[in-house]
């Protein structure tokens, strides 16, 4: 056998396990002829480019008939080395990197990272900044669950779920764009607070959105919840009980759908979540159906939190007062777009030499963070998003490790789908709702 031979070319060979066929398509009868005897064990490679794998995910499935006997998962196709990259940027720049990990929950990444940096620095952020963080995170949670629902629906053939899900998600992204300037990858939450305050008109837009969304969410119940096909595709599919979840480290809606009301916003509150009135939805079915219901209910709860956050918004700073940490970006909207405000530029260029030095030092060099390590978990739409951040006392992180819930939850694929039908593998993975950008980082 020469090395230039294509190992995946169609053909067959004898092995100690019997005759092994390699096929990449074509007519079944032509490949096998009348040779279809004995046991039918099929190894199917699915992905990494496949419309039903919920991202750039590769599945290797052993099939007997339509029953999956073994499911193996291969990841890493979106690995971009973000953790390593943060070690070569200053602390503030880190925000722009971590926001690109779980790209459906960028604000949770930013919040987790910034809370870790703030814990290392030992600083408290202003109340208004904390409230706005909660506000944008909950809008983001709804957007993320909608994409989970939309892509999950698409993978199961419910295309209306897809078009509607992305339609409503667009409403959420419009809001986030109005608040942060960007639809995704916002870099809005910064160590010490926020990049900027809510723009004029944002509160009104959010209030209007709050009147629209409940009706839209109710439509999903009309469209999907009562629908027999949707129910039968999800019920008793991808079963994983509490014991299995905890052993495999699964958190988020999957764990709550197994009946354990474990939500970090309740059990280890941060950013003042203990002062908001909201429920932790659970289900007791431990299957994809329960996860669907939990996500639907969580969107309703997030709407409640957004409304409460709006009500308690008090005027005030959105960044710590310490000028050693606060990025000197007095942003304003000019004719050529968003940038440093003219007054600030005039002040540092013509008014105060010290301000110019300070601006230059902080922007090019950044601030120093005392040595030590912290682990800060936040409840992202997919579960526990943990930031383990190590500082050596310099202007750059020594190590940033992200415990991404998608990465951990994806380990449940085999437990959820082995022994089931091949079509149910799709439903099971859709119910995990992994985001490959977070899995591979």
């Amino acid at each position, binding site marked *: 056998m020469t090395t230039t031979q294509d190992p995946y070319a169609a053909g067959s060979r004898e092995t100690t396990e019997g005759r092994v066929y390699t096929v990449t398509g074509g007519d079944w009868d032509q490949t096998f002829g009348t040779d279809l005897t004995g046991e039918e064990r099929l190894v199917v490679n699915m992905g990494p480019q496949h419309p039903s794998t919920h991202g750039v995910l590769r599945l290797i499935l052993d099939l007997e008939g339509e029953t999956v006997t073994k499911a193996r998962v291969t*990841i890493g196709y979106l690995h971009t080395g973000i953790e390593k990259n943060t*070690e*070569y940027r200053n602390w503030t720049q880190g925000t722009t990197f971590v926001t690109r990990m779980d790209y459906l929950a960028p604000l949770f990444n930013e919040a987790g990272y910034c809370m870790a940096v703030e814990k290392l620095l030992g600083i408290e952020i202003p109340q208004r900044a904390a409230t706005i963080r909660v506000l944008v995170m909950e809008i983001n949670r709804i957007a993320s669950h909608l994409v989970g629902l939309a892509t999950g629906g698409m993978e199961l053939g419910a295309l209306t779920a897809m078009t509607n899900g992305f339609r409503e998600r667009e409403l959420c992204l419009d809001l986030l764009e109005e608040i942060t300037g960007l639809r995704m990858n916002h870099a809005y939450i910064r160590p010490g607070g926020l990049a900027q305050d809510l723009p004029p008109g944002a509160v009104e837009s959010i209030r209007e959105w709050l009147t629209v969304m409940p009706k839209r969410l109710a439509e999903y119940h009309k469209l999907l919840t009562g629908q027999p096909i949707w129910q039968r595709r999800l019920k008793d599919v991808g079963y994983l009980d509490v014991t299995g979840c*905890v052993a495999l480290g699964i*958190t988020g809606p999957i764990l709550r759908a197994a009946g354990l009301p474990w939500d970090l916003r309740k059990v280890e509150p941060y950013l003042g979540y203990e002062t908001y009135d909201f429920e932790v939805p659970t289900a007791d079915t431990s299957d994809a159906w329960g996860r669907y219901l939990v996500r639907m209910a969580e969107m309703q709860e997030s709407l409640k939190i957004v409304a409460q956050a709006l009500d308690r918004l008090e005027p005030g700073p959105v960044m710590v007062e310490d000028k050693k940490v606060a990025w000197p970006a007095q942003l304003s909207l000019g004719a050529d777009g968003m940038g440093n405000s003219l007054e600030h530029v005039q002040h540092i260029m013509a008014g105060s030499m010290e301000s110019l030095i300070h601006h230059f030092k902080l922007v090019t060099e950044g601030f120093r963070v005392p040595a*030590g390590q912290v682990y800060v978990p936040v409840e992202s739409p997919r579960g*526990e998003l943990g930031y383990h951040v190590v500082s*050596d006392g*310099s202007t*750059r992180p020594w190590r940033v490790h992200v415990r991404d819930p998608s990465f951990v939850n994806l380990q449940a694929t085999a437990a959820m789908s082995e022994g089931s039908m091949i079509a149910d593998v799709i439903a099971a993975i859709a119910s995990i709702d992994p985001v490959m950008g977070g899995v591979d980082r």
Partner: protein
Amino acid sequence: MSNDGGFPTPGPDGGQQGIGGGPAGGFRRGAFGVSGSGDTSGFGGLVRVEPGGAVALHSTERPYGGYFDEVTDALIDEVGEATYAAAVQRVLVDRGELTYFVAREHLLTIVQALRDDDALRFELMSSLSGVDYLDSGGPEVEPGRPRLHVVYHLTSMTYRRRIRLEVAVTAEDPHVPSLTGIYPTADWHERETYDMFGIVFDGHPALTRILMPDDWDGFPQRKDYPLGGVPVEYHDATIPPPDTRRAYR
């Protein structure tokens, strides 16, 4: 404990007390690392250690405060005084987080006790990852220095507690027992840590690369592995790749 890697953290009073050895040579002060220059923008409250500085890492004295004492007592009860003394090399309480530095020979005993004891019940392993504490002071890496740390974050869902375990190994002998038998979730975490740091988890059922291609050379998140990158031309200027830019450490 002078050479088990890691950076010193401020002592209980937040100052430099407890770092030991005094601020001779190894330390640098101020936010911007400059002193005596009239730098008005520097933040003087920070003390950092220069790479290569002789640093003794301190251990927090009891009482640790909060639930940390309860956890420690329960752990001693479960594994016994002698095993605890042999297994836990030092304990650090910093920023409200508890860290046990565990000898790898006793890791499985300690973790099993932490998971199973009624008073401990750390059911969930939240996170497992590596940190490379390679000294950035010079090209030579002192052999035999335990620069690679494996960091475990355990969560007790029953008591709503979190603790951290750390195991330090050398790059020459990077072996740590696998926790997959105790926490199945450790599977992918350990594969990733192997992939990125080359730490070998003995007893893992299939320790293969997970994020990098199977035939990749080297362990990308070690500190002596370069970030890579090429210079980029922009508006007639050449921007060097991030790891070769002027560094403000």
